[in-house]
């Protein structure tokens, strides 16, 4: 069975993809992928998500991540959320 990560989409990100979540398979033989590679994959998969990702943050397992996407690794079972600018309150 392939190793999967879960992607969550909210607000403008959900509107752009038309799904609230999806599973992404890690490349075969890989235990992880960089957030940079995941970003490129998501952009290819969802054309309308490209401008949304320009202003969105990521949260991995409910923690905001900082912007060095090359060095941040996403592993099997991780939950990655796209967080567009928030508007609670």
């Amino acid at each position: 069975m392939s190793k999967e990560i879960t992607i969550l989409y909210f607000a403008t990100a959900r509107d752009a993809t038309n799904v609230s979540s999806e599973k992404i398979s890690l490349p075969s033989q890989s235990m992880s992928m960089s957030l940079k590679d995941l970003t490129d994959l998501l952009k290819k998969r969802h054309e309308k998500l490209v401008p949304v990702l320009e202003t969105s943050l990521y949260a991995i397992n409910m923690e905001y991540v900082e912007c060095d996407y090359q060095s941040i690794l996403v592993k099997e079972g991780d939950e990655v959320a796209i967080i567009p600018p928030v508007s609670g309150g």
Partner: protein
Amino acid sequence: MSNFDKDFVKLTSENLILQDIINLVKDDGAGAITTFNGTTRNTFKGKTVIQLEYESYSPMAEKVLSDLIHEARTKWELTKTAIYHRTGIVPVGETSVIIAVSSVHRQESLHAVEWLINQLKEKAPIWKKEVYSDGSVWKENAESRQKV
């Protein structure tokens, strides 16, 4: 350290009633209760808002808000705290968020409530969609944490 009987955080689709939240933070040792009650406005730049829809990443939002309370407790001496945020459809004029904090003296809870609502607006993964008669738009808080 978590305070199960002192700190209350909840995302809920149910109507928020200020007195219920005040009752959560009431304490005989606290001389002050400060509350913030956020309500939904009926206009935006002249357009009439029909209703608002709140979406949240609820498990993370509750975690972020609990972490903020934890941080607030390192800044001020607080007795009890509560943050309740509405989700789903909220009609115009209804309450979308309530923050209530009790403290022995008023200064502590006054400062904490202002800090908590500002931090919520910046960090909590919650989104508001304004629905007009001719469309809708996802809002962005001016305070929202930005990609750098």
